[in-house]
């Protein structure tokens, strides 16, 4: 059974969420979106159903947040809670249903970015943790780590300095460059702390796209392979490859036998070994 960080939302069943929840975290410009696009195409090519989601994409609050950010009069507490609304709308209506349907969910940022931003804005860390205690514990958090100095060229060559990414609401003065440095440095420091607490798998985000992608592929394969069903279909490790070969041989033998009996019946595609999500835990404590 899947776990949350503490609280379970009313009506949210944690059993049978057999999909995989993979989080890609990192500061602005770390390359998350590029990598997620590559990963999605790659996973789909391998036959996985993929849902990708990210901040402010909820039908409920996405538009409201965008509009509120245009005005630059969005307060810090309000901002934190608006993002929490957006997150929970996606959690309940996108992420959980997709996991139940066996999807690989790739999420561009998760509660960690939201917590880091809130903490950098002076929110009480205990307060923000309490709010996000209803989040699902993901199967992996991949953190694309990149230093501020490596970040700056990327910002210059992409969209330039943004009001919120420069923390103009946090730091005094009008100097966007200086504020960008201070804000991103503070965020990185917070990410470092979170990476220990929430066991991030850190990847060097300053490397080129291909190298990062290869690294992510390796990590993600390990996760999607941990499910027996997918192990069978997409087996990669020595063990599963052997298993796969043996099964294929068995099938081939059966097929030959069937053919020799002149029965034109093909074997069903996947003789899946049941075993749920492999965690062996049944629904137990759901105190909410």
């Amino acid at each position, binding site marked *: 059974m899947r776990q949350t960080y503490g609280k379970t939302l009313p009506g949210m069943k944690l059993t049978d969420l057999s999909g995989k929840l993979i989080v890609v975290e990192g500061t602005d410009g770390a390359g998350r979106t590029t990598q997620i696009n590559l990963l999605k195409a790659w996973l789909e090519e391998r036959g996985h159903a993929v849902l990708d989601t990210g901040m402010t994409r909820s039908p409920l609050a996405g538009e409201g947040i965008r509009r509120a950010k245009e005005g630059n009069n969005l307060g810090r507490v309000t901002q934190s809670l608006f993002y929490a609304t957006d997150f929970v709308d996606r959690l309940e209506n996108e992420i959980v249903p997709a996991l139940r349907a066996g999807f690989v969910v790739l999420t561009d940022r998760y509660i960690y970015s939201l917590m880091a931003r809130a903490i950098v804005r002076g*929110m*009480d860390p205990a307060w923000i943790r309490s709010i996000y205690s209803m989040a699902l514990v993901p199967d992996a958090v991949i953190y694309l780590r990149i230093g501020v100095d490596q970040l700056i060229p990327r910002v210059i060559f992409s969209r330039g300095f943004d009001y919120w990414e420069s923390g103009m609401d946090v730091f005094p003065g009008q100097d966007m460059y200086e504020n960008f440095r201070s804000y991103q440095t503070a965020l990185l420091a917070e990410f470092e702390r979170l990476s220990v607490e929430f066991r991030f798998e850190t990847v060097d985000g300053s490397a080129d796209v291909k190298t990062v992608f290869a690294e992510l592929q390796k990590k993600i394969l390990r996760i999607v392979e941990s499910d027996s069903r997918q192990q069978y279909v997409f087996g990669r490790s020595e063990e599963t490859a052997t298993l796969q070969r043996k099964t294929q041989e068995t099938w081939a033998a059966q097929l030959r036998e069937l053919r020799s009996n002149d029965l034109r019946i093909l074997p069903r595609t996947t003789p899946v070994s049941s075993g749920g999500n492999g965690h062996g835990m049944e629904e137990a404590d759901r105190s909410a």
Partner: protein
Amino acid sequence: MNTGSNLRIGPFEIFYPVEEAAERVRANGGSSFPGKLFVVEGIDGSGKSTQLSLLHKWIESKGYGVVFSTWNSSSLVKDTTKLGKKKKMLTAATFSLIHATDFADRIERSILPLLKAGAVVLCDRYIYTAFARDVARGMSSKWVRELYGFAVKPTVAFYFRVPLETAIGRLVAARDGFKFYEAGLDLGLSDDPTESFRLFQGRILQEYERMIPEFGLTVIDATLPVEVQQAQVRQIAKTHLDRAKELRVRP
């Protein structure tokens, strides 16, 4: 949390027993603001809005700078809430969070600066409404209390206590039909809006009763004549205003 000045606000001692937060409040809580915050609470049909509007007139006539703030009125957030309600997109959790977002905006941009400036702020519904409704919808009462940890403790929180049937009688006479979330139809308690409203408000009433001792709500018997209730409200408000003569606006 830091609110941008040297003043810190945080969860109050009345919310949940976190030592650190309690200390903060004793140092910087609501009472350290020059302004006064009066809030009214109660189920729909308890007559609280009528009472608050009468109190408003009276405080104004005394020459105080007085500002009204209603539940769900943030210009930044209310369109999102409306969208969610209209399209029935809200779950217990998002219902709770979007209302907290609305409240946060009003606290940050209106209530807090007004209290610092010495105004009398009147709120029609406050955090207790959220606690009652969200818990009635199945949210954890601890989680919701922590969520609103940034709230300012009111000077007085009036609770207009009324039996369910009296309130429903008043509402049925005054309106035609109940709205989806207002009647708690999202909970699936009953398909009939009036019956659902009755069951949902019953739960809310229970939550209010629980909060009277928890938060020290000032109970007003809302079955009494309007004038009698108002006299009690003014009496209580007066004791707090007398101690804050300096916030009077001299014409």
